């Protein structure tokens, strides 16, 4: 058994599919590509795949990572070519490489993710107000967000998950925010939650519902440095 790690995209076409649907689309493509994927034992064998983190509905990505257990080793370049030939529009494999069979689960090794948020600007947008809002957010020691779920309310301090200060760029039509979020064993926050708080509590002058969120990178830590999960534990 070999563990193949893949870096995959989730494009505009699939922005609104759920993580589960995304996983299913990929496992079906693995079957169409007739790759020798490994299956679990039992009544209802399923393909052995594991993802780094679930992407929210509405978010696209350049950097999804997935581990696929293979019954036999096939050249990563061949896997990429065979998968890309059968993947649906919006999903492409960018990189692939074998990692140690006993490598720690992707979910456990990733610790930071970067996003870009694009928001169309409306008439009232002022760069100065936007900068002011980001500065105030940066200066706060704690920013509490109330997350509502079927299980009830949770109070989360957003600031403890901010890895780098937020950066802003803008054109006459759009404003773009770049942010890095820490992923910890205790949880993380969604970029949409940070944007919601910026708009509602810090007067960031945009309409958060029209934002288009895109994941640009996912990082793992190795020797105190941030590296791609594909650069970890080569066999």
């Amino acid at each position: 058994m070999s563990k193949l790690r893949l870096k995959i995209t989730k494009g505009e076409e699939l922005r609104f599919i759920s993580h589960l649907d995304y996983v299913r689309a990929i496992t079906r493509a693995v079957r169409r590509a007739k790759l020798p994927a490994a299956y679990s034992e039992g009544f209802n064998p399923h393909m052995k795949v594991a993802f780094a983190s679930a992407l929210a509905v509405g978010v696209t990505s350049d950097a999804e990572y997935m581990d696929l257990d293979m019954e036999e080793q096939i050249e990563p370049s061949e896997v990429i070519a065979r998968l890309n030939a059968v993947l649906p529009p919006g999903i492409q494999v960018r990189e692939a490489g074998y990692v140690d069979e006993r490598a720690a689960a992707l979910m456990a090794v990733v610790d930071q993710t970067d996003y870009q948020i694009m928001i169309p600007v409306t008439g009232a947008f002022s760069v100065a107000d936007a900068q002011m809002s980001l500065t105030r957010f940066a200066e706060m020691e704690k920013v509490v967000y109330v997350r509502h779920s079927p299980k009830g309310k949770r109070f989360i301090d957003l600031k403890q998950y901010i890895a780098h200060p937020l950066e802003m760029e803008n054109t006459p039509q759009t404003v773009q925010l770049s942010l890095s979020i820490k992923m910890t064993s205790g949880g993380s926050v969604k970029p949409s939650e940070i944007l919601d708080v910026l708009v509602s509590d810090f007067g960031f002058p945009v309409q958060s519902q029209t934002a288009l969120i895109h994941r640009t990178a996912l990082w793992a830590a190795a020797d105190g440095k941030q590296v791609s999960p594909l650069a970890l534990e080569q066999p």
Partner: protein
Amino acid sequence: MINRYPDILRQVLKPARYTGNELNSVIKDPSQVKVNFALAMPDVYEVGMSNLGLKILYEALNRQPDIAAERVYAPWVDMEAAMRERKIPLFALESSRPIKELDLLGFTLQYELSYTNILNMLDLSGIPLLTSDRDLSHPFVVAGGPCAYNPEPMAEFLDFLILGEAEETIVEVSQAVAAWKEAGRPDGRQGLLKMAALIPSVYVPSFYRVTYKTDGTVQQVTPTCPEASPVIYKRIIEDLDQVAFPTKPVLPYLEIVHDRIMLELFRGCTRGCRFCQAGIIYRPVRERRLETLLKQAQELVDHTGYNEMSLVSLSSADYSRLRELVSALSERYKDQHVSVSLPSLRIDSFCIQLAQELQKVRKSGLTFAPEAGTQRLRDVINKGVTEQNLEDAVGAAFRAGWSAVKLYFMIGLPTETDEDIQGIAELAYSVKKLYMQITGRRDIKITISVASFVPKPHTPFQWYGQISLAEMERRQKLLRSSIRDRSITLNWHDAPVSMIEGVFSRGDRRLGNVILTAWRNGAKFDGWSEHYKHDVWEQAFREVGLDPAFYASRNRELNEVLPWDHLSAGEDKDFLIREYHCALSAECTPDCRRGSCSACGVCPTLGTKIVDWGNAEHE
């Protein structure tokens, strides 16, 4: 759609219902296309995407280089609200174009309770609801499917219908539209409708005048122009090995209702159950060859990556070479982790052996449909199943390790007495007893699903009055009180819903007004119990001044002109009458497939015959 309205898509449930871009969806260059056809299901995406008929027609149309078929389904209520608020017209999934800009909008009529959704989708598209209000800027609204055999309640809303298997007709109709457009739309919409009426199996309701007697029954249905034939006959595909089958179906991202490969073994069923409309309208039986099926199965596996394959037909276990097919498929796909399943099991031990072969490990549950609780009533409905058959089948299942069975029944069948209702309970108890005898254990789960019988057009029971709402409820209660056992679960169909279905299945044109009124008062998604509003329907009947009992619970005279008499699946009315009499005297009629011909009239009327590759191996 995706980037124009991210805020809406973010708010609604399952936004992937509206964003398209699925693998194998067909997007054509508009400059190469002469006719644009929207194929629609008046229900949500997950239901529409599961319909094999629509997949087949999508393939048949898109095979033509100058025809583009797209898909559209009913937006769920949250999306509808957002679309109405922002004035977004209903759009096609492939191109995101407004439906109103296409040439044809074709609905599949799968069940009567979806009618208000058709009106809702027309309204969301900005297409006038009444055919008489449409002009050259509007698509032609067409329909097909089982309810097309009596579409009279929907007659005012549909420009034309196609009876029977439509893969050839729908292309001919589209070509007629292309020719009509190229000729400069001579004689406006009427011009095209007259061209369409000349195509066999096409029914243009507006070309027929219906008159009524003083007692409210139909006096006469008369064609009003030379293009309209007095009787419209369905069309079928005679050779299923030669017709296009979608081996590259659109692959949804969302989990849909039937999220697996559908391999269609054959069409038609000749078992002759007297309540069953499908058993008449899809006649005669026509099988695909084993070789064709194996080839299609391979293509489907290659093009979808599904890990489940369902062998679909009206009664798949009747496929003449089922054993060979199942062995070949299991052998070929076991290493590829594709499981094969039979959706409908006949009640006999052959089927249990097969089911055992198919589900080597998991023994989830088996479903059987005895339909009625006593032998007498099963003979009335010509369900050729004895208590012994059921005992053999269920016994074989228990010995093979199954411990859960689901049993389907109907209440309100013609001649049913309280004894027949109690028979359902007795049958359930005897299944339980059998389980304990065979296994010595008590851990059995029996689920009994009880539907209320709805008489359907083109069946031997088309004259029979449905029992009243109060009587349905009394019989349900009687059954409930005869079952007191924790291992037996009882499920119901809502009686009011069955009554409304009963009204529209045998309704006439005057009911169009009731549908319109109910829709205006908020009826939609009537097939979804959380949206069904019985008071809205009752109110609509009162407003229009029609009595639902006239349609649902009235016994028709055998010589009455029925609203669908001018629409034919090829069956002789005399055959239906003979079967009606046999039913009342509990006489069985054998399956015509390999036994004797029961002279239903379909083969001679359509000039066709049964196609059966049987080698009698498993008989």
